């Protein structure tokens, strides 16, 4: 039969290696990402929040000796917003809400960067071992992952932080224990997927060692989903940490948003809304911004998993 469905000339098949493809894609990706207005909004909020975090020592007088502790002004307690010297009011213990809001950004930035670095590293190592070596090791590691996933995140972190006792360092530790699991899963899935791809075989034929193949082909190709997840987690970690400290697992008086909301909670029935409202809004903005950007990234990098 005569089938005229095929166009006369098919486009040339690109002959560059994966790196070339990736560098070309980077420009495209950022262009596409910037085309989405909600992603841009998220980026703008992130820039503002980072500016706040970096400029906090200039915008306020750092508390001595520890700037991460709230300064107490016992003379002006429960001052409403607009009070001279206390733009956003004060808490029931005389803490300046503005100070907490600004330094909270610094606390959150440190927290999220530390936890994301730890969890990505651990996750990538575990996932790589499982995916690349496979076999029994894979079996065992993945069952461990299953077990970790069987406890809802916040509850797991809450239990760990609880047995370790209330302190911000323990919150960081607890979050690190809980959040690495997703990365291990992502990396393992990607590796197994890529291992079946042809050019890894090609590399094998050319006699590259397994480890070189891993470094050159497998790892760089697994990075995009990890990037998306890490962006989302930058928000999720601050959200979870704030929840833990709201429940009471950070040391009292820390300049951290969850602690401030918790301090302000008692006052709301008496109409003192500000001490909870402003810090809570910061948590929301932080999580929102990273979710917007992570979402936009996912739409562009991996449109098929959108919304899953």
């Amino acid at each position, binding site marked *: *039969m*005569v*089938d*005229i*469905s*095929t*166009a*006369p*000339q098919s486009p040339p098949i690109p002959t560059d290696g994966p790196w070339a493809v990736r560098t070309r894609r980077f420009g495209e990706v950022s262009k596409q990402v910037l085309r989405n207005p909600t992603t841009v909004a998220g980026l703008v909020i992130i820039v503002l929040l980072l500016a706040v975090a970096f400029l906090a020592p200039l915008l306020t007088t750092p508390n001595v000796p520890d700037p991460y502790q709230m300064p107490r002004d016992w003379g002006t307690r429960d001052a409403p917003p607009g009070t001279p010297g206390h733009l956003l009011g004060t808490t029931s213990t005389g803490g300046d809400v503005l100070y907490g809001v600004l330094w909270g950004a610094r606390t959150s930035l440190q927290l999220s960067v530390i936890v994301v670095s730890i969890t990505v590293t651990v996750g990538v190592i575990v996932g790589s071992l499982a995916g690349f070596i496979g076999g029994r090791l894979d079996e065992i590691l993945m069952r461990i992952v299953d077990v970790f996933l069987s406890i809802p995140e916040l509850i797991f972190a809450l239990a760990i932080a609880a047995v370790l006792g209330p302190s911000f360092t323990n919150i960081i530790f607890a979050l690190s224990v809980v959040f690495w699991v997703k990365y291990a899963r992502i990396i393992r899935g990607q590796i197994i997927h890529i291992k079946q791809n042809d050019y890894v075989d090609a590399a094998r034929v050319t006699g590259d060692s397994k480890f070189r193949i891993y470094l050159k082909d497998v790892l760089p190709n697994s990075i995009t989903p990890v990037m998306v997840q890490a962006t989302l987690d930058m928000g999720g970690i601050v959200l979870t940490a704030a929840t833990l400290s709201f429940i009471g697992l950070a040391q009292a008086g820390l300049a951290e948003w969850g602690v401030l909301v918790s301090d302000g909670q008692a006052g709301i029935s008496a109409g003192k809304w500000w001490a909870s409202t402003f810090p809570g809004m910061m948590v929301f903005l932080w999580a929102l911004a990273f979710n917007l950007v992570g979402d936009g990234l996912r739409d562009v990098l991996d449109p098929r998993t959108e919304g899953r």
Partner: protein
Amino acid sequence: MTAAAPAAGGTDVIRSPLVASVEGLKVHFGTKGGRIHAVDGVSFDIRDGETLGLVGETGCGKSVTARSFLRLVQSPPGIYAGGRIRFWSSLARRTGADPVDLLSISQDDLLDIRGNRIAMIFQDPGKALNPALSIREQVAEVFYQHRSDDLLYGLADDPPLIIRRAAGQRARGLERLLLKLPPLRGHAAKLRSRVDVHVAEALAETQIANPRKIMDSYPHELSGGMKQRVMIAQALACNPDLLIADEPTTALDVTIQAKILELIRQLQHRHQTSVLYISHDLSLIRQTSDRVAVMYAGRIAEVGDSDAIFSDPLHPYTRGLLAAVPSASHKRGGLAAIEGNVPELVDPPPSCHFHTRCPFAVELCRSLDPELEMVNGHGVACFAHASAEHLGVMPEELPSFAKRTR
């Protein structure tokens, strides 16, 4: 013949009345890169009882043209940018009523025509059936939608309103609950068994062996050929005046293809249905079609009786296609004989869309749209067949098959 029939066909041939007439149809897609002129001024007629074959290579706009009949082009990004599709239903032909323009009638009128007067079969029966509904439910929908009066007739002297609404698929949440409860349950069951009879009949018509059993299955339990039979049963359930078959056998095995084609032909004769048959397979088109329209890059290149097209092709594109036909040696090589690229359809300038590949192209072809000129029902859109006088140019400026430019 209706007075409104266009100039197609001379006085010599007596042709049957028109069922549909596409005139200057333009369908565009708004994209970030510009407007894709997917269908860019297409005209052809479909006459009573005939099969019109629409042939062209992938992406030339066949499906978009077909979907325009039922306004099924996704919009946005699709835009109906011009032209009209006139349609004479059998009733209109009998009463001498005016045709309707499918592109401008109201949504309600359109729903009345879809699946009732004009039906469509899709390329991949596996995707065109809903995986979550049983065959019974899917075929029954057509009867509920278009034959609710027949279903109610004789069911009861004066069926309750809610039953009438159920027969027309208008029953809502609470009503559907009531239909399951005692006073109405009997009526509802009777209604359902009546529909079942119709569904079984429709399936039996497509030579499905055990219709009652098939009715209860789900699409994934059936073979591809079986699914396409169900689609055909569904399409012909209401005796449509026009059946649009968009590559109905492309997704099927070769052995099943022949059976499905035969089935469509039989049913077409029995039901007196006109068919718009779309394919990119020339030999299939030759087998099935009374007349053929050759489409290229959003336009009709040539249209005429099947015999005329295959024995005496006029357009360089058609000639190129046919020159490649007999060679069994290259399997899919239909167009290997014609060099060059299909032009971009984004905001094309006026020109013959085929000029990038045409061995006879001259300057004129690159700056002017050739019109589809009809002589004795055979139309061709190529300056080599145009009259210099009519165009207002010198005869040597026209392309001629004597001189090849490449």
